[in-house]
């Protein structure tokens, strides 16, 4: 796990790739209570102008949150976290689904053993989260 003392601006977090399948969307719908049909019904998704079923933006945000929690070693270390949803994650009806690739860079050191991290998430070559920034509390040393 990273320590505050050894974490400098520019430190890159280990990149991660997450698969998102239709089954993941159904599961997230149930767990979150967001049953918007564009996340599970291809016919209706296409009828409102989407290329296919899309993932919940909040699921993409949660995957990037998982990325931060893994780095810090504690989901409770992510004290502030904000994103802009810049493009949908399109999830085809196959075994592989979509891939979300998450990267992060330490932007600055804050007080109280906290650091600000800039996060990016891409799917199919497109940025799906922009202006994504989190404040993460690290072990002192």
């Amino acid at each position, binding site marked *: 796990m990273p320590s505050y003392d050894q974490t400098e601006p520019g430190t890159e977090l280990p990149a991660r790739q997450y698969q998102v399948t239709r089954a993941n969307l159904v599961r997230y719908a149930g*767990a*979150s209570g967001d049953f918007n049909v564009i996340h599970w019904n291809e016919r209706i998704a296409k009828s409102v102008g989407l290329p296919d079923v899309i993932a919940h933006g909040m699921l993409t945000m*949660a995957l990037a949150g998982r990325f931060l929690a893994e780095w810090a070693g504690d989901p*409770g270390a992510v004290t502030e976290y*904000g994103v802009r949803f810049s493009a949908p994650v399109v999830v085809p009806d196959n075994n592989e689904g979509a891939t979300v690739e998450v990267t992060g860079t330490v932007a600055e050191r804050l007080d109280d053993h906290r650091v600000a991290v800039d996060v990016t998430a891409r799917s199919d070559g497109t940025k799906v989260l922009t202006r994504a920034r989190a404040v993460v509390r690290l072990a002192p040393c």
Partner: protein
Amino acid sequence: MAINTDYTGRTFDPSEPYEVSRVKIAEFADAVGEPSPLCRDRAAAQAAGYPDVIAPPTFAIVVNAANAARVTHDPGLGVNYAMVVHGEQSFSHARPIRAGDVLVAQTTIESIRALGSMTTLTSVTDIRTTDGEHVCTARSTLVERGA
């Protein structure tokens, strides 16, 4: 029908209390693939300094779901929900949400802005325990696409 800008600055009544269970935290952690034992194993959470299992960083969206639906479906606000996409979301935590919390959410409409054929609605939701301890502030921007 456009979103009613008279709602700018309006604070809605607090939600019904939401009781956070270990089962719901584990279900949500499974759904987002969060593998941490701190979300499932009380002993592990206590060893890390928490009173009980903690929720993943975006769990507040679950606590706020019923409250948010009540706000966005307010007939006077005039949101065409079929045309809405989630534009931005942020959470600021005083501490992690944990099993045993009984939480109340209260939403204030911060701004309503027209941008060409789109309208953005930004709201701020204060989430605190029934004892008044502040736990999380959530800020959400919804975008209603023009018909």
